[in-house]
């Protein structure tokens, strides 16, 4: 990450990806918005656009194979099952895991809730083997202050249901995770630790190794929220060393409606189900039921088959580009954007201001203009960004701002997109008459 960090940022390093070739794969980038403006899509952090290869894969499935997998013995059912399980193997290989460790969920949010509800279900499970990870009074669950609401609220709720205590690691003034009290926050009472690999609002990539090591030292399980990392950098679960990794398909060029819970096989095996119903059972009698082994135990009902097929196509697309190149591409853009934005008087970046241990989410404020209004002027220029608290309300509160404007990059982003963003911010300053920020009343 530091190889390019010393460059001034005003120069443009050659981009690792061929932006024009990539853009040609994304039909939506051919449309215009707001009276004929080129679409400058800088909101991949919210959801990514989809290349034709992903759309084709879904269409292929519906036009040729469509059937409910793991049910029926007809030809289509067999082919659908085969396609579904092949997609599982593709996703497993994308993150360096085993297929039976990959559970398909609706999205990251559902994957996190699956684990949280499984832990509280463990307390009342009739099967002794499912009680191993029960959480209750006297136990502690550790999160961080930079988590997305999806990796905070389910744990608050788990603690409220079970009487466990929620603790968290705080933030430093420069947008990093504060590890100074790591050994007291994670202690012998800690049952579970969850942390993002890349903050969706700050871009920060917290140091996971010491957190995972400390958690395992005290016998706690660790989850890594990869919603913003798996789409943007190589992630290998074996190297990571965590017990769970969760991520969404729609943020990594895949369809909406599919996400992934990866869990270490022996951990998943000891967890009771979250959602129950068809296809997750072993034997059902009126008096009670037993459950299938993972991953089926956690996939009740007919799955989002076409979306899973589409997600595998997205993983193949990213693999063909090369995840190391994807990461280097975004790092070059991030370095340039950070330098260009900070050169504008009145712009404050909320989060790390260099590319060290940092992803491509750039949140900022413009003095004298509310983030919504910045976003509105950018939208008028065809530049799509996210505004608000980005489902990380504690973070904006921590940095004393009501909201931020956030730009996020991806494989189709080029320097022209960053230039459009920077020009749009300057335009907003002119529009609201704050292009001489020293005159703005404090």
């Amino acid at each position: 990450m530091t190889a390019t960090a010393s460059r001034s940022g005003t120069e443009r390093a050659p981009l690792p990806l061929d932006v024009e070739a990539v853009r040609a794969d994304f039909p939506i980038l051919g449309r215009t918005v707001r009276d004929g403006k080129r679409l400058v899509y800088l909101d991949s952090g919210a959801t990514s656009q989809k290349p034709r290869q992903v759309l084709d894969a879904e269409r292929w499935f519906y036009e040729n194979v469509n059937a409910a997998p793991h049910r029926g013995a007809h030809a289509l059912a067999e082919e659908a099952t085969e396609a579904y399980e092949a997609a599982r193997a593709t996703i497993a290989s994308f993150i360096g895991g085993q297929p039976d460790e990959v559970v398909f969920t609706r999205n990251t949010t559902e994957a996190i809730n699956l684990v949280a509800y499984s832990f509280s279900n463990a307390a009342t499970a009739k099967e002794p083997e499912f009680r191993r990870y029960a959480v209750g009074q006297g136990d502690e669950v550790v999160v961080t202050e930079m988590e997305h609401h999806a990796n905070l609220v389910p744990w608050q709720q788990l603690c409220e249901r079970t009487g466990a205590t929620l603790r968290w690691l705080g933030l430093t003034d420069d947008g990093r995770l504060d590890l100074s009290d790591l050994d007291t926050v994670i202690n012998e009472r800690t049952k579970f630790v969850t942390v993002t690999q890349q903050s969706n609002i700050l871009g920060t990539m917290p140091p996971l190794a010491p957190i995972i090591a400390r958690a395992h030292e005290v016998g706690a399980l660790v989850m890594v929220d990869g919603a913003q990392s798996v789409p943007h950098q190589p992630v290998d679960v074996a190297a990571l060393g965590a017990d769970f990794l969760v991520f969404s398909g729609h943020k990594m060029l895949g369809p909406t409606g599919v996400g992934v819970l990866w869990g270490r096989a022996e951990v998943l095996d000891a967890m009771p189900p979250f959602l129950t119903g068809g296809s997750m059972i072993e034997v059902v009698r009126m008096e009670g039921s037993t459950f299938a082994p993972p991953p089926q135990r956690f996939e009740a009902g007919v799955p989002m088959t076409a979306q899973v097929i589409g997600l595998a196509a997205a993983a193949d697309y990213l693999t063909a580009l090369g995840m190391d190149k994807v990461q280097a591409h975004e790092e070059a853009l991030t370095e340039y954007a950070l330098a260009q934005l900070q050169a504008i008087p009145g712009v404050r970046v909320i989060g790390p201001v260099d590319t060290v241990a940092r992803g491509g989410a750039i949140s900022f404020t413009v003095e004298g203009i509310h983030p919504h209004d910045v976003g509105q002027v950018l939208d008028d220029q065809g530049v799509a960004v996210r505004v608000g608290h980005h489902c990380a309300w504690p973070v904006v509160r921590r940095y004393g701002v009501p909201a931020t404007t956030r730009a996020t990059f991806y494989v189709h982003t080029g320097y022209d997109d960053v230039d459009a963003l920077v020009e749009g911010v300057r335009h907003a300053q002119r529009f609201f008459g704050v292009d001489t920020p020293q005159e703005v009343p404090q």
Partner: protein
Amino acid sequence: MKLQDMYQEIILDHYRNPHGRGLREPFDAEVHHVNPTCGDEVTLRVKVDGDTLTDVSYEGMGCSISQASVSAMYDLVIGKSVQDALATGDDFMKLMQAKGDQSVADELEDTLEDAVAFAGVSKYPARIKCALMSWMALKDASARAWGGPAA
């Protein structure tokens, strides 16, 4: 569609120089409303004498649209009966649902005064909540002040 349609000069004036801003005593009810999608907030107090709104005081943070809207609302409702103020709020809601239809704005110009300038906002669905937040807060506070807690 032009950005100026939404950011009318009259709206920017209210944003830069808000009318009636600040929390005042005495008051009969205070409410706090947030727009959870974006974090805009307003704390609003009402003072009612008989059925007349004698004061509406507020503090808030948010975008130009939300802040200008509460300022324009202040001008419209002070001295009105609670019923008339809420009827004006219903008219404002109509304006926000007009999707930029100029005939709706023309029809409501007399009752909404400065607030008719928000007609352009109705073309931007994501911003309508910003403009409506203060009116929702007023409705809530009036109900609490006038008839006990809001039903």
